[in-house]
Structures are given as structure tokens and as C-alpha cells.
């Protein structure tokens, strides 16, 4: 049976996502995002919480941090450390690619 093709909206394509969008995609309350921002997981643009904008990289870091907390029992500080280490591993991996 042929299924008609669906086209959705690519989130963050304008380069930014709002706090509400991030909350909905990550399925958490605003307080959770605020806590992770306080931990330094990412730095939103905008001075007040009501005006926060997240770039796609930052939104992705938040989402991964939330999943690490939820699935592996890591706290926000541990999630931040894990993210930094994983990025470092990615950078190193490409250098040994053609070892």
C-alpha cells in the first residue's frame, strides 16, 4: 500500500530554538533546562529566561544531557563532563582515522 509522503518542519533550521520548543522536544519542564544551563551545558542567547534562544548545537547538548540523566542516572555536573569528554573523543578519533 502506498503511503503518501509526509513533510514536516525541520526544527532549529532558522538557527535557533525557543525554550518552549526545546522543552517539548526533550520532554522536560523548563526548570530542568534552567538547571542544565546553570551547569554550563550550553549558553542561550537572550538576557531573560523568557527570551532565551538556543542554537542547534546547544539544543543537541541539552537533549543528550537529559537522556544521560534519565537513562544512566548521571547528575547535571556529570552530564556536562560526559559531553565534554565525548566531544574530545570525537576530535581525537578523526586524528587516528588513518593511523
Amino acid at each position, binding site marked *: 500500500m502506498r*503511503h*503518501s*509522503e*509526509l*513533510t*514536516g*518542519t*525541520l*526544527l*532549529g*533550521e532558522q538557527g535557533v530554538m525557543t525554550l518552549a520548543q526545546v*522543552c*517539548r*522536544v*526533550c*520532554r*522536560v*519542564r523548563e526548570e530542568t533546562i534552567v538547571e542544565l544551563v546553570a551547569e554550563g551545558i550550553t549558553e542561550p542567547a537572550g538576557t531573560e529566561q523568557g527570551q532565551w534562544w538556543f542554537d*542547534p*548545537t546547544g539544543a*543537541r547538548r541539552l*537533549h*543528550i544531557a537529559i*537522556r*544521560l*540523566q*534519565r*537513562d*544512566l*542516572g548521571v547528575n547535571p555536573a556529570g552530564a556536562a563532563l*560526559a559531553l565534554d569528554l*565525548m566531544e574530545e573523543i*570525537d576530535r581525537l*578519533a*578523526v*586524528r587516528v*582515522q*588513518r593511523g
Partner: protein
Amino acid sequence: MEFKDYYKVLGVARNASQDDIKKAYRKLARKYHPDVSKEHDAENRFKEVAEAYEALGDPEKRAAYDQLGSGWRTGQDFQPPPGWHGGGAGRTHAHEFTAGDAAQFSEFFESLFGRGRGGFASFADSDHDASSMGSDHHARIAIDLEDAFHGATRQLSLREPKFDASGRVTMQERILSVRIPPGVRSGQHIRLAGQGEPGRGGQRGDLYLEVVLNPHPLYRVDGKDLHLTLPVAPWEAALGGEVEVPTPAGTVSMKVPANSANGRRLRLKGRGLPGTPAGDLYAELQIAWPPAHSEKARELYRTMAREMAFNPRKAMGA
């Protein structure tokens, strides 16, 4: 449906303590978590492990599962015994952390324990009246870099509740065909409004599809940029010149400046993932040496050694 040996999945004995089960789960969860793991098929392995822990980590569910006995083997054709009612169906037990993404458990699990929500407090549930309006569905799809570059259409199979006239729920499979636009970045979400799970009232939430890029043998993807280790001949690096560089859109010619050192990064602007603006492709030069396999090659190397007076260890005092 197929039987699943949850003890085997966690690698514990049938008489393992709850502590042992928890420890085994945590270790495997770390090993196979999709955000962390480099293992083959990590996401499915993680779901398997999470489901096993959901069953065995709860003493009630574990007791019910144990009643099936030790005679079953993984993959064996299985139906719940007549008169079966699952331990704590629909109720979930408190983990310190919940097992995996919101409850897409296997048919086997649901036949034993009913359709719970995995103990995960869904953001969508708190704002929607899940019983009538339906809730958001979150799914993930893995695509290759070529699909992200050119765009693609993918089929997606989702399991969702179906409500009959008396309000009873069965799970049914739904197949969607989704357009993946070109230039999509790894981790980016596509929102399909009104394609989420239906509630009793027939209305659906939204479908959030997370796109994940499979690792590519040549390129490392960083947002919209691509990174490539590019082998060059010693004379290409020393003398400079044009070299052919692979890109997802085909090979392009790139100028290598003379006296380029090993590890030098050169940028091909706009040759990364498409977009406004398009990403770039970074080629890191790696000098590859012709092997000294023939007398002619060895003579050429001896000439270089003689004529070039080059001591790479001079700065070390050696």
C-alpha cells in the same frame, strides 16, 4: 510472538539478587546507550537491556515472569498461558533512573505486563489530557550521510494504541512515509504536526522525529561541516599543486600550498552539508610515503638522503 530470556539479556543467573540485576543493568546501559556507545546496533541493544530491567528489576513483575519457568528459550514461539494476568500491569516501579525512552516495549513484554508508561513522566502527558487528546510520539531514524546531503524519503514503522468503541486498547502498527530534507544535521528534529499518538477522542499529538547520521567511512560530520583526512604524496605537500578531493557531491580539485606540513587543514568552502549557508569541508593533510619496495624507489630515497641534508631531530639535540 517470540519469547525473550531477560536473564540472558542481562547476563545474570535466574537466582540473581535484585542488587546484582541492578548492577548488571547499569553496566550494560552505559555500554549500549545510543548517545555514548560506539557498539554496533547500540540503540536496539539498549532497548533490549532496558526492557529486561523493567521486567526483572521490579520484584512483582519478576515473580510473574519466573512463573513461566526456565524451559523457554529466546526466539521460541510464545503465547501467555490462559488466565494470565501480568504482575503490576500498567503500574511501573520506581527506578532510581528509568529504563530508556518512553515505553516502546516489545509485544512479548506487553503481552505479559500490559502497556505501562515505563515510569517516565512525560512532559506531553502533563499538558495534554492524554486520555482524549493523544500525546506526542518521539521516534528516531538513522540515515546515511548521502541521504542527509541529497535528501531522502524514508518509511517509518510506529506502534501506537488503538481504542475500540468500548475504550479497550490494542497496539497496532502504523507505517508512515517521511521526507528527509537535504542538509539535515545529526540530532536535528523534524516535527510532523498531528502525526503523534491518538487519544480516545481521536485527536493526535505531534510526531517528533530525531534524525541521526550513521558514521561514514570517509567523513566526520560536525554540524554542517565535514572533516576528512586526506592522504597526499610528499611531493604534493612539498611542491604544492592541485589534488583531487572526494566530496559527497563528487570529487573536486583543491590547491595545496607549497611546503604544507603534515596535519595542515585546508578548507573547501561550501562543500559540506547543503544549507543557507552551506557547511564547509575541511581536509587535513596526511603525508603518505611511497613504500621502498623496489631498487629504483630505494635509490630515489638514498638520493634524497644524500642531497637534502635533513635532520628532523636537530631541534631535540639528537
